[in-house]
């Protein structure tokens, strides 16, 4: 009935053409509608005010979508499509009322909801949305808003750790006085980069492993604890070295940082994979 209507009416013919479009084309149109947000993100990336780590998340997201492109539905799920449209409108309105980063977060969530609307059943959405958010230039904003508290917490716990190890340590703000040597936990030491890396790791592994949203949500707090523990460990080791030597070489800083990052992300993968393997 409907097919006959479409075939004979100009509007119906247009509808048929639209339905014939690839879901990715629709998503492309939606992305185009949200262009001001991408322009802002691109500008922020280009002017060096943020690390381009987001490109890795974008690449992972693109790879994930490309792999599932044959499975995309021809017609979107109504609820997700509506949600996507609503968030798109909110993102557009955010251009006038909210800071650009919040608007961009809404934009990527709108796009992720759009993607979810055409994905087959059983596909995770949370890791995809996570990768989409991580693709934005969020590191410097995280550094600005979360950096100081993270530094204080890291310095405080590191002080406890060093005291337990028998060293004379005390914290003053984000600085530590260890064995008479002043060592500061400044912005590059905050652990924000490790936060990004760990959540990228979690989202990417969960997405490519097909971990369910609920399971992932339950494990995310553990990721946060792993990051904090890792950063405290890294900071404590380096502070101890700084306090006992005249200077610690850059290679040692890099080496300790990478080893701890490897351990943290390895643990994150284990946490994310653990349930998957058990289920499989």
């Amino acid at each position, binding site marked *: 009935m409907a097919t006959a209507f479409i075939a004979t009416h100009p509007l119906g013919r247009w509808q048929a053409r639209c339905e014939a479009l690839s879901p990715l084309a629709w998503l492309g149109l939606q992305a185009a509608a949200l262009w001001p947000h991408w322009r802002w993100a691109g500008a922020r990336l280009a002017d*060096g005010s943020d690390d*381009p780590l987001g490109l890795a998340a974008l690449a992972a997201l693109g790879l994930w979508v490309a792999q599932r492109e044959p499975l995309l539905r021809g017609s979107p799920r109504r609820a997700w499509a509506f949600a996507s449209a609503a968030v798109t409108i909110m993102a557009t309105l955010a251009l006038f009322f909210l800071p650009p980063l919040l608007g961009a977060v809404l934009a990527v969530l709108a796009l992720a909801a759009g993607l979810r609307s055409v994905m087959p059943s059983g596909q995770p959405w949370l890791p995809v949305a996570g990768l989409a958010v991580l693709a934005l230039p969020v590191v410097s904003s995280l550094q600005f808003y979360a950096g100081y508290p993270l530094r204080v917490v890291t310095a405080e716990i590191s002080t406890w750790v060093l005291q337990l190890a028998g060293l004379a340590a005390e914290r003053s703000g984000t600085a530590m006085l260890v064995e008479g040597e002043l060592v500061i936990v400044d912005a590059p030491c905050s652990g924000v*980069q490790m936060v990004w890396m760990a959540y990228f790791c979690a989202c990417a592994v969960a997405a490519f492993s097909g971990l369910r949203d609920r399971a992932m949500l339950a494990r995310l707090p553990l990721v946060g604890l792993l990051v904090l523990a890792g950063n405290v460990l890294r900071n404590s080791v380096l502070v101890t070295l700084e306090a006992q030597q*005249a200077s610690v070489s850059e290679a040692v800083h890099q080496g300790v940082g990478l080893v701890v990052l*490897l351990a943290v992300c390895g643990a994150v993968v284990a946490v994310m994979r653990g349930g998957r393997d058990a*289920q499989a």
Partner: protein
Amino acid sequence: MSRPRIPYNPLTRTGRVLWCMALAAFSAVLMLFWSPAHADDSEALRAESPYFAVNSSEPGTDRLPLKSTDVNVKIAGVIADVTVTQHYRNEGQRPIEARYVFPGSTQAAVHAMTVKLGGRVLTARIKEKEQARIEYQAAKREGKTSALLEQRRPNVFEMNVANILPGDDVAVELRYTELLRPTDAQYGFVFPTVVGPRYNSPSAAAHNGGAIGGAYLKQGTASNAPLTLRVVLDTPLPVRAVASPSHEVMIDGIGSTHAAVSLKPSEQPANNRDFILNYRLAGDRIEAGLVLYRGTPDDGDEGGAENFFLAMVEPPKAVAPREINPRDYIFVVDISGSMHGYPLETAKVLLRNLIGGLRPSDTFNVMLFSGSNRMLAPASVPATRANIEQAIRTINEMGGGGSTEIVPALKRVAALPKAEEVSRSVIFVTDGYVSVEAEVFRLIRQNLNQFNVFSFGIGTSVNRHLIEGMARAGQGEAFIVTKPEQAAAQAERLRRIIETPVLTQVKASFEGIDAYDVEPLQLPDVLGGRPVVVFGKWRGEWAGKFVLEGRAADGPYRQVLTALPDGQGPSALRQLWARQRIAALSDQEALEGGSTQKAQITELGLRYSLLTPYTSFIAVDQRVRNSNPSQTQPVDQPSPLPEGVSNHAIGAEVPSTPEPGAIAALLVVLGIVIAGVWPSRRRRRKE
């Protein structure tokens, strides 16, 4: 219940290869186009740290051309003749120009420099500063080995040696003389080995032409240029006690009139603090007397030979303090970054001793200054126990940090209201690592009717020019504390001096002598244990007396000195007189501002062959040795930091614990993600 399988197709072998290639390309793009300055803030911060300012990036270029410093000191009576020999060697593959900033004594009259190169000796000439610079630059461009010695400050010199060819061993020898002024019958010789990093306020930097002190090694990094030092003492009375509070020394000849002192070999670096040698002569008296030098045509004086004299008079002993008027003390304490650590702790000990020893009739105040300043109380408070305890609590809480804005602190002190009948003493406690000496002296002189200034220099290598100049300008006395255990004794000494000036209204006169150009023009009050020193010239035959008069605590004081008229005293009197006159003119110039005394100072420098702010020594080898001088690499010889001074003083980055570089971290994470995802992909493919 198993979850529904995801019906997607695994990548083919070709797909996996393409995927790996894409990942590699992505990584390469990141590596190539991602600016490291943006990737890691910690990298950017490190690059701005000022230490190790070595310009050469040539792998073969020797970064540290100064190989050794040898010091030979001959002390005859109260005059030290010092020869400093520095060996530079180029162990690289390209010609270099070495620049090296080093300290000198505040009283040094630098009068000769020679350069030894390949068995030949080049004698430097004294030239007007700009002219010397032009000649040096010309010689450098022409490929001639040349050396230029300039005075950056009265106690800071800069040596430039151009065209040191690969394999060259250049020995630069400079000579200076110095008058040793005893205190409490103890003689002291000081050889500074390192210039402390001076704080340059933005306004001062414009006048000084940049930083002072050049490049620095980081805290705890020893210089690779060893210091050897030998002192020979020839005294009229046997040497009774010799000691060095700064270094371990070997001593020969105690009890004789000929003693020798040398540094004991040690694992510890010797060139990161002042070398200090104290000695006493038998009889515990200052070697008072009158020395004459009759000039000869060889002196090179224009307009005939000049005769010089030096009078040193031991003042009367201090008597017990009598009832004296109430006094007001303002303690001005430097809490800047360079004072962080031991200097500040020593300052606390010092202040606790000073303030704790005040009498209840005294009043006092404390100002702490760094980038800004703050007072203990709006106005001076009585030295009651409660106020003293409050002050000591305040002092105990202070910590070092920030810049050294000494001029605003001084201005604020000068603006403090004071009753006319109150005698005010301002006691500065600082390491003197600033570069605004002239302005400080000018301010003190302008406010001489308000206060006397006593200055405490704390540190292993303080800026003695500032410390001593402040005391000279403020008609007070300078105290140097190089070790914490000296603080209490020096505080006691200051209190003794302040309480009992031993000689006031001091005048020097001459009977039967045609004396002229006497230095200093006005004699200050004589404080405990220091002799009165007068330089001058005389004409004709010496057939008279030198008379010193004044008022002592127990009545009028008069002392008469006579001398053998043979005029066989040391020729160093010429340079010492000229150095004294130049110091007085420099003080006057600082008071008036600008270069008002430039002509006179330059004339004195050229006439007496002395290094001054306006004259420099230059030595040029007439042979062209470097055929391609444009390839010469400039090398800044870094100095060690003075012992006890931390990296805070040079604005060095406080150690931190930055995260690893973003690129490396990302590659690690990508590897982990791939490793984490890969097993499930393989499992699904099998299924």
